[in-house]
């Protein structure tokens, strides 16, 4: 009798423990010092720095490898200057490749639409309104590059998602779309 009782109890406890398995906590690790890095992990907290973050901003004036300074300012005058004077440095090989399209379909298509008519998914669903068709605006490759770099009105800057070269590819594809509208 007692034994049966004990077995039932044990069984019940096992079921309870199993049912308490919690997905919001990580599992145990075997020899965690093989798993956890001794050095700082990206984005981790660390008291080695004043603000407690591993991710630090680069020192002012830092230039990353391959960076080409962009001399037009983020002002209406800078925009006009870029529109008039800025020319694309990419070669015909880049222009004929489909890289620009691939990038456009990641970064621009949601608002500007696959055809560049300003009817992207976000516009269709009325999340983001007032996206103009490329046809309705006077744009040059310089002005497109300028706007992708700095953003304009409701559009934000995409300079940290796209490198300068990639922005030129996108600008080229935008003009290609515009000519087809």
């Amino acid at each position: 009798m007692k034994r049966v009782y004990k077995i039932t109890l044990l069984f019940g406890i096992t079921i309870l423990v199993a049912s308490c398995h919690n997905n919001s906590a990580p599992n145990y690790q075997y020899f965690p010092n093989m798993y956890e890095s001794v050095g700082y992990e990206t984005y981790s907290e660390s008291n080695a720095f004043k603000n407690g973050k591993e991710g630090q901003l680069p020192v002012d004036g830092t230039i990353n490898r391959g960076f080409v300074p962009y001399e037009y300012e983020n002002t209406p005058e800078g925009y006009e200057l870029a529109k008039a004077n800025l020319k694309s440095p990419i070669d015909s090989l880049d222009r004929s490749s489909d890289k620009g399209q691939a990038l456009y379909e990641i970064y621009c298509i949601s608002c500007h639409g696959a055809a560049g008519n300003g009817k992207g998914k976000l516009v269709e669903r009325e999340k983001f309104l007032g996206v103009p068709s490329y046809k309705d605006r006077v744009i040059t490759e310089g002005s497109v590059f300028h706007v992708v770099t700095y953003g304009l009105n409701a559009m934000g800057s995409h300079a940290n998602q796209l490198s300068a070269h990639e922005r030129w590819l996108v600008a080229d594809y935008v003009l290609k779309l515009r000519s087809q509208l």
Partner: protein
Amino acid sequence: MKKVGNHNSNSRKLFLSLALMLTFSLTSFAQDATPAAATEAPVAAQGGDPVKGKELFNSNCAACHKLDAKSTGPALRGIAQKHDMAWIYKWVHNSADLIKSGDAAAVKVFEENNKVPMTAFPALSEGDIDSIIAYTSEVKAEAPAPVPGTAVAGSSDQGGISNSVILGALALVMAMLVVMLFLVNNVLRKVAKANGIEVASKTPTTPIWKAFAKNQFLVLVTSIFLLLASAYFVYGFLMQVGVDQNYEPIQPIHYSHKIHAGDNEINCKYCHSAARVSKNAGIPSLNVCMNCHKNIAEVAESTATPEYSKAFYDEQIQKLYTAVGWDKSTQSYTGKSQPVKWVRIHNLPDFVYFNHSQHVTVAGIECQTCHGPVETYEIQKQFAPLTMGWCINCHRKTDVKMEGNEYYTKIHEELSKKYGVDKLTAAQMGGLECGKCHY
């Protein structure tokens, strides 16, 4: 009336444990359910017709103007009361000229809005502008106050609650059945006693376990079976140590991949742009969020689900604004930002090297292959086990993408000759070598 006491009490215990289990499962369900605030009543449809105005407004003005809130430009509702129509025509057709001419009102508007020039719209006719003004002059539909009697809220919340209610009712019924069994048993015993019937005196037979212990063959077979079974479970337990499949932590901001990547079809790489070019996919920095959310301060009514209300989602956007230091009322950054402590989900051990760009850009593998149907996840979780066996299996099955990759042309020719195949798998390219991932 003979009664086998042993049998009966066993089943009783079984019932009890079942009831216990059900009760516990109930509480665990209750913990999972998020309190959903009452969904707000839909805004009543507006009267009046300036439909054309709305269309024009949405395609031309809405990039910078909202009706009731300052955006890049000022809020436009009731703008006709502030300026006369002739002035508005001039302003819309070419605001820069108007400012240059020294018009006091124009200069004032220009300076109030951080001197951001408005795009000129010479193409809009005066009739068009009239329709837009008609649209902006519509009275704002007040959010209908909760009228007593017309119950709006609650109806959509039913799904979550009714489930736990049903489970609770079931548990209750079970508990009642158990109690009734006890009572019936007692009553029967009493009746038997009252009628003078002797209740089952146990006949002393050899208990079943003693009989079992005497049968050596049975004992042997049972112990072998038990050993194998426990080995199976111990192995299963050991193999899941350090595996975080389905890990689903609670994040500081409730970010729904379902809304962004699913409903709105935003490309994964829009936010995780580093996955194209770097080892890490990266946590998108908040400026990427602000590319859209500068303009989207609240979610649409239709985004709310029974589980998560509009108020809940709006609160999450507010959390983003607090973190990034964005002041909604002035449409500017305050400079007071604070980090968001995202909880990392996919965490490879320190002794494994994995490179996103190699898989995403070079191999052209879909994000979903490893991360699962993220576009359906309201709460992000780890889809793959991320064990070595899982990596290796995929390397064995997946052909290397050769098209448009000159780097592979020569080695592909040599290796396919060596293995006598047309297409090389990642494994044949050296994807199984220890040093590829562990060094």
